């Protein structure tokens, strides 16, 4: 991988923060955008902008082609069988809420089970918690191992014939752990349940094939994978999506509107009421092109190597506590410095031009499990280098000295 070339593709990285060249280590929150994505959105607005699926005019056709082309691109990128299985959403949060609000109540009654983990991001946690409260279903948790991993055995012991929905992230946004989705999907299916996979942190970093993984539903956020904010997608098996009712009503999602009744379009239009996020979809398509140009295998290899380097460098710092397993497949390293609060860590790192996240990372239940109120988190992406990790490590040492 040509690190120099990649870094040059991201204009934002070429700046100084507080007198130091920017080191951006907060990609799990949102990734930076390559020039190709920024240009694609600009080009769309300068040349092709129109509403989709409506206009007979040329711009209307161009916009529609761009939007539906993006759907096809997403479908291929994650290995969906057909483009109709991709519903564009605002992001992973909206996608997961759509499944919980529409599919959830249609299959759950009192006594049924929803199985999740304590490690889920709030967006893959609260929708199920609230759905359980609404339907009288029981919310169950696959117990975590000491190092924060989820084993197939633990999943096997938790999922039962009463389980209707299993919801789990492919990759944890706090510990970078990759969960054994394929095996958990098998267990879910054996018990007649569906599996909903939160792909916000996996899609940017790993090659994903939803069919091979056995996902019934899979979600992604564009902004975490070099695309713009405000666009994401829900993948659902066609038969499942067909069985679901819309939860938002409005323009373009209808078949026929009568005074007292209405009927809906086929999927995915049924779930895309209102003018869709056209420019967002165009940007997402450009992001996928960019990631594929670099190569997902290449990105995964780069991050794995860099994550190992980061684990090695950071674990040598006295008084650092790194959470999660020693081996990382995805570059998320969550840690605390002894006697220095993570906010203070993040503020001092920022004064050295190093951007990390501090807080609970939208994972309060996991923070409780770790028995901390918050942590600092450095998260990597394809544009990070060993020099960035070196800068982080030396800034951390200086942070320690500053507060000593």
């Amino acid at each position: 991988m040509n690190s120099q070339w990649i870094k040059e593709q991201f204009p934002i990285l070429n700046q100084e923060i507080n007198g130091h060249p920017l080191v951006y280590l907060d990609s799990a929150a949102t990734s930076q955008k390559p020039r190709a994505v920024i240009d694609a959105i600009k080009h769309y607005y300068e040349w092709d902008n129109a509403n989709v699926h409506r206009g007979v005019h040329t711009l209307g056709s161009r916009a529609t082609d761009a939007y539906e082309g993006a759907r096809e691109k997403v479908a291929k990128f994650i290995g969906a069988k057909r483009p109709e299985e991709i519903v564009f959403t605002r992001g992973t949060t909206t996608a997961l809420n759509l499944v919980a609000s529409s599919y959830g109540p249609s299959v759950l009654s009192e006594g049924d089970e929803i199985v999740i983990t304590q490690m889920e991001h709030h967006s893959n946690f609260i929708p199920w918690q609230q759905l359980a409260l609404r339907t009288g279903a029981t919310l169950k948790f696959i117990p975590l191992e000491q190092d924060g991993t989820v084993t197939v055995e633990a999943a096997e012991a938790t999922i039962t014939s009463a389980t209707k929905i299993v919801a789990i992230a492919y990759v944890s946004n706090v510990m970078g752990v990759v969960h054994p989705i394929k095996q958990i999907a098998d267990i879910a299916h054996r018990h007649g349940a569906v599996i909903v996979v939160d792909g916000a942190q996996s899609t940017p970093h790993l090659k994903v094939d939803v069919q091979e993984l056995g996902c019934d539903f899979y979600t992604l956020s564009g902004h975490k994978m070099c695309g713009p904010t405000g666009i994401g997608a829900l993948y659902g098996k066609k038969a499942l999506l067909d069985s679901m009712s819309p939860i938002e009503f409005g323009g373009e999602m209808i078949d026929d509107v009568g005074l007292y009744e209405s009927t809906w379009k086929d999927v995915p239009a049924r779930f895309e009421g209102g003018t869709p996020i056209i420019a967002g979809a165009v940007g997402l398509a450009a992001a996928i092109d960019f990631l594929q140009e670099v190569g997902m295998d290449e990105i995964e290899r780069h991050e794995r190597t860099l994550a190992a380097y980061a684990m090695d460098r950071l674990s040598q710092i006295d008084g650092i506590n790194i959470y999660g397993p020693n081996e990382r497949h995805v570059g998320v390293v969550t840690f605390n410095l002894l006697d220095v609060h993570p906010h203070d860590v993040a503020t001092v790192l920022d004064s050295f031009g190093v951007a990390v996240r501090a807080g609970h990372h939208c994972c309060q239940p996991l923070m409780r499990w770790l028995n901390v109120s918050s942590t600092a988190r450095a998260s990597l992406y394809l544009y990070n280098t060993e020099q960035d990790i070196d800068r982080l490590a030396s800034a951390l040492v200086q942070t320690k000295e500053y507060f000593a």
Partner: protein
Amino acid sequence: MTQLDDLYRRVIMDHYKNPRNRGKFDDDTVTVDLNNPTCGDRISLQLKLADGIVEDARFTGEGCSISMSSASMMTEAVKGKKLDEALEFADKFSSLMKGEEVTFDDYEDLEALSGVNKFPARIKCATLAWNALRKGIDHND
């Protein structure tokens, strides 16, 4: 590092490492539990209010140096003050966070937190304890 030094003045680190009024009262008090949901800081503030005066104040909680030192200073500053004087202090503290020139005549330690206004992301850390104070006094009305 000068801006950093402005943020983390010695007086702040002293309150952080040796917090004043940290702990709990055994008897009846006004208790306010407040979280900063974006970052996980939390404070539990207890106020002894009698005859329109803040007789005593204690706090427990967890958070960064800014939020905990601010809580320590706040409890020191408002002890013995009339309720409206305490609220006036809270207003003055808000002005301080906006970067305005403010002096705290009988509790100058608070002025050390003036550097926080250069760090917008940290202002909510500094104001957590003061928001708890306002809630506690309002609740008592």
